[in-house]
């Protein structure tokens, strides 16, 4: 007699915990062939705000961790994701309708993306910063620092890889993230939350919402405690309105991009602020 499986309940990932939507809502997730896969939480605007509160609370400590430490935590994500490779292949195969080989290649690239960004944590500063030869007796240095809380619409065409490609670069500098997953393929996003929860990533550093980007994003775009808005996966939304809403608090904005963003230093630098410090030198 075959053993009856125990299907997973997919919930949100907010503040290091896995709550259901406060709204009590869920939605059906199906395979491309239309087969029922699971019910996912349908996040509300209140869930979005709760996620921002968690992200803000976690931000100073994450930014204050040493760059070496952040690099190790991001590398730890790669280690744990690698350990759960089979599970992600299964989920991606089911939700994207691709072969196990294609899904495997995506998971491998997701893992390698974490490794790539892990290595940037203690290096981008020397690429983006500068010592400045000012005309006067001053020690003058420019260093990049995290922008703060970044709200992200993940690519809507990729369950895992697209999500990793937008979340990882935002974390490098010490930003914290509220990300809305691929609406139709949200399951791997929550499984990634489980990886994050066991990877020494402090609770609240990454918050993952599943549901409708069209419903939640406007509340994040206008939220006064969000510093930056990554609209990479928002191409199908009324994204110009989102950019206009973001302008009210002068958020830094990445406009929508077709396809997947890949790996890029520019994505790290999009969410940093350059701080220039002038310090007097004694005249001896």
């Amino acid at each position: 007699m075959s053993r009856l499986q125990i299907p997973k309940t997919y919930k949100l990932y907010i503040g290091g915990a896995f709550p259901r939507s406060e709204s009590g809502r869920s939605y059906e997730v199906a395979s491309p062939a239309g087969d029922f896969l699971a019910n996912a939480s349908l996040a509300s605007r209140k869930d979005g705000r709760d996620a921002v509160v968690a992200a803000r609370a976690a931000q100073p400590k994450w930014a204050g961790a040493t760059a070496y430490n952040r690099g190790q935590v991001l590398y730890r994500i790669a280690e744990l994701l690698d350990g759960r490779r089979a599970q992600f292949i299964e989920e991606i195969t089911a939700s994207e309708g691709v072969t196990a080989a294609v899904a495997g290649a995506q998971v491998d690239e997701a893992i390698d993306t974490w490794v790539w960004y892990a290595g940037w944590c203690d290096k981008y500063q020397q690429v983006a910063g500068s010592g400045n030869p000012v005309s006067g007796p001053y020690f003058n240095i420019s260093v990049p620092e995290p922008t703060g809380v970044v709200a992200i619409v993940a690519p809507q065409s990729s369950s895992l890889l697209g999500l990793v490609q937008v979340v990882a670069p935002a974390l490098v500098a010490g930003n914290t993230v509220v990300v809305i997953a691929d609406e139709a393929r949200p399951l791997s996003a929550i499984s990634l939350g489980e990886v994050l929860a066991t990877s020494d990533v402090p609770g609240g550093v990454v918050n993952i919402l599943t549901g409708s980007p069209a419903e939640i994003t406007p509340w994040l775009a206008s939220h006064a405690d969000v510093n930056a808005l990554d609209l990479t996966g928002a191409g199908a939304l009324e994204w110009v309105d989102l950019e206009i809403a973001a302008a009210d608090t002068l958020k830094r904005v990445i406009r929508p991009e077709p396809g997947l963003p890949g790996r890029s230093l520019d994505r790290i630098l999009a969410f940093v602020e350059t701080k220039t410090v002038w310090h007097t030198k004694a005249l001896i």
Partner: protein
Amino acid sequence: MTNFLDYAPAPESTSILHLKKSYGLFIDGDWVEGRGKPFATINPATEKKITTVASASSDDVDLAVAAARRSYEKTWSTMSGADRGKYLFRIARLVQERARELAVAETLDNGKPIKESRDVDVPLVAAWFFYYAGWADKLDHAGLGAAPQSLGVAAQIIPWNFPLLMLAWKIAPALAAGNTVVLKPAETTPLSALLFAEILQQADLPAGVVNIVTGAGETGAALVRHPDVNKVAFTGSTGVGREIAKAIAGTDKKVTLELGGKAANIVFDDAPIDQAVEGIVNGIFFNQGHVCCAGSRLLVQESIHDEVVDRLKQRLSTLRLGDPLDKNTDIGAINSKEQLERIRALSDIGEAEGADRWTAPCVIPENGFWFAPTIFDNVSTSSTIAREEVFGPVLSVLTFRTPAEAIAKANNTPYGLSAGIWSDKGSKILAVADQLRAGVIWANTFNRFDPASPFGGYKESGYGREGGRHGLAAYLKGATK
């Protein structure tokens, strides 16, 4: 009664200026008439008219952008970096040669003391062009990838507080990176930009590479919204910055915004008090406080509050307010009637909300726009004058007990442009600097600027940087910020 502080008048002569009775728009290398209603630019110290300036209509803006596009495609983007650099070096030298004239013009039109336009503004203008001139043939080495590409036509809108210096901050990096420019000076201070156009002619800069259109807000709006503009660079108020960010939403225009500020100037009890007092004065009374990065909130450690405020009042009592052209003047004229009214209104609110107002004893001239250096003590963090940018010679004094409290109060603002820290302890300075959410931090100094040093804000003080390699990247493709 005379005392040792009384000086004989020593005004700089205006005979060095040879101004025209009226100025047109500088488009495609030539002066053309504007189709808007011409307006007068006045000397804020006397309220007398200096000259008449053209106003650019949206059709004129079209012409200017078209000229910039033509020269971008035919001339400037195909010219070698070395040659672009040589033009910028020429401009730097011409600015130095005509420094005295430019300083007088700036002081006449803006109201700032001649010692500031002569010793700060104009030398920095030359330095800015000289610095970016050297980048023009070294873009490959700027760490922005191989052969970084220019953006195209840059629309640049500058404020009235440092008219020529802001022009240099905008034009120098844009041209070095290979872009062409349409620049709109502020309505109340167009004069130095118009003299600069003459310098461009002397430098034989190819026609259309830099176009200067004078006018008010509508001219700027037409420029920002122009569909053939690739880059918008704006320095001014956060309110207008928001409107610009909205106007460019959904386009692929790249944007740099340098907006308002409400900088904290933090004085610890171990600070060198003499220097700190000078730094506080420089921080808020430099350029009549018309400085977006002005140290308008003095956060002083409770134990030294009385001493610092007393010494500050003594020092302010020695400042000379009056004729901006006088070489001994410390505090010049407020730039416009509107600004004076805003400063007065906010100061009255400060008083009404319970802060203790102190005004430096000085004689206010009969004509012109003036506001005596003013300190508000016992200001609460919720007070309007502790939250809103006054953009005038008005200092709010608040106290703190611990570094953590100083940091929390300093960061308690939607702005994040600059901050100051005064302490004899370097390790404390660096620890506090780490925690401040501001783009420029001055330790045991204030209001220092240099073309090699990136400048710009966090949060609602805008985004992007001007100055240094960062300021160059703002005018190149692919480079973020």
